[in-house]
């Protein structure tokens, strides 16, 4: 892999741009690997990268049924933050946030990580109480959180409807200034390129269709490109965790739901932070290209359709326009939807499964993108050593049976209520 640099660009400019190479190889799958990772999204690729970099395992394959960047990695709203109330969650996501901060340098790939801040709006006294409690919980663990009053929010976001008769009155907010956004497919490309440079085989158009079991353990996978032997196998296919684990006869506490996002035509910079409202479950940010990116609720019933329903578009647009009236003048140019792994407590599962040599990283609900580097780091440790990273230990598969769920929303085992 040749290193990307200003000097290389300059040299290329003087030599007719002939220096460009593919960012990663297109290898034929080998007969067997020490570790096979199913799923070439951001999480699977970062897992392969950290396995190769920190655990000295180089004989790794990442099997992707489609193409790199074509799955959920490219189907989100690119928001990165770690401001959860539950310690298990905010400690894990803050570990990820620290990796985000150095990611472009580490991968030698510009993932356009932008710390523009992530602002939760408070629309009532009780919202503000909850935000203050969340801020306290974060600050106690050394994670940045800043409670803002109405005037401070007004100065931070110039376009909000701050009038007294606003549909959603703004009492204040809680901001995490280290939060922000990143270019989502660059994250997948960057990890694919860096993992490939360490010898990882990134195999595209290779769908896993079954597990090969012997003596109660997984010894390989059957794929659309033949049988591939595996020492350890890691499922990392959030959105499809249920069907893939089902190939090994395992039922998960996960239901698939569709989550939609939308983007408007590009305009000049008008929103320079990420605006979120948990009471409305609406999130708004402006991409580096200028489009206003909007997201809302999942569809709240099980679906793999990868196409959303009109009522969600209407609700998200109505909320966004009520918060930022100027958005009503923009045309919506595109909407997309992804399949989310809605777990039964709203938290991920990074864990060994009841079948030997088989591991799961999934159940990210609608919050997987921000976890990408931390998830890969922790999952790599689990796949390399068989024991959980301390920050990932609370996310074990058996937590439901133990009654140790991590339920940020406090709604119990009902993913449709999240």
């Amino acid at each position: 892999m040749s290193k990307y640099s200003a000097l290389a660009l300059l040299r290329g400019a003087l030599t007719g741009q002939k220096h460009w190479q593919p960012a990663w190889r297109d290898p034929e799958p080998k007969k067997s690997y020490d570790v096979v990772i199913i799923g070439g999204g951001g999480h699977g690729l970062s897992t392969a990268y950290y396995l190769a970099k920190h655990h000295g395992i180089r004989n790794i394959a990442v099997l992707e049924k489609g193409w790199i960047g074509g799955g959920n990695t490219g189907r989100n709203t690119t928001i990165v933050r770690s401001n959860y109330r539950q310690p298990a969650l905010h400690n894990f996501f803050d570990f990820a946030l620290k990796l985000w901060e150095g990611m472009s340098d580490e991968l030698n790939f510009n993932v356009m990580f932008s710390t523009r801040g992530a602002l939760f709006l408070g629309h009532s006294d009780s919202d503000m109480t909850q935000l203050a409690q969340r801020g306290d919980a974060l600050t106690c663990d050394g994670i940045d959180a800043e409670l803002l009053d109405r005037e401070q929010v007004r100065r931070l976001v110039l376009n909000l409807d701050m009038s007294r008769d606003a549909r959603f009155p703004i009492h204040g907010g809680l901001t995490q200034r280290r939060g922000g956004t990143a270019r989502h497919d660059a994250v997948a490309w960057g990890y694919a390129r860096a993992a490939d440079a360490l010898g990882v085989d990134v195999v595209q158009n290779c769908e896993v269709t079954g597990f090969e079991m012997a003596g109660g353990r997984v010894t390989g996978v059957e794929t659309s490109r033949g049988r591939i032997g595996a020492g350890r196998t890691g499922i990392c296919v959030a959105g499809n965790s249920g069907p893939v684990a089902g190939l090994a006869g395992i039922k998960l506490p996960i239901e698939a739901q569709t989550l939609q996002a939308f983007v408007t035509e590009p305009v000049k910079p008008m929103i320079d932070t990420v605006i979120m409202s948990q009471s409305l479950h609406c999130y708004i940010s402006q991409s580096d290209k200028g489009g206003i990116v909007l997201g809302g609720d999942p569809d709240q019933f099980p679906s793999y359709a990868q196409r959303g329903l009109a009522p969600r578009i209407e609700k998200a647009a109505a909320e966004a326009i009520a918060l930022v009236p100027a958005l009503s003048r923009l045309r919506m140019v595109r909407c997309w939807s992804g399949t989310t792994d809605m777990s039964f407590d709203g938290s991920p599962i990074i864990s060994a499964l009841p079948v030997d040599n088989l591991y799961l990283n999934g159940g990210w609900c609608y919050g997987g993108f921000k976890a990408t580097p931390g998830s890969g780091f922790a999952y790599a440790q689990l796949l390399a050593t068989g024991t959980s990273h301390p920050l990932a230990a609370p996310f074990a598969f058996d937590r439901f049976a133990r009654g140790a769920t991590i339920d940020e929303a406090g709604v119990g085992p009902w993913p449709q209520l999240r």
Partner: protein
Amino acid sequence: MLLISCPHCGERAQVEFTYERTLDSVVTLAMPPEDAMRALYERANPRGLDDELWRHSYGCRQWLLIRRNRTTHAIESVKAR
């Protein structure tokens, strides 16, 4: 949007209905704890047909049993419960 044919009210828009849970996740009082835990926390979650309980929340408020394809959104049957 789905068009759901309520056996009590006729065809209505899906926004009138609320998904409750899969039929196999209904927990009864007579269940041993292990079975109840399994019903609460395990799902086949198929990329295809499954039986689900829905409620016509903004209509007749009756419970319905809907057999639906989760990939195509095609509804095979809606029955009163």
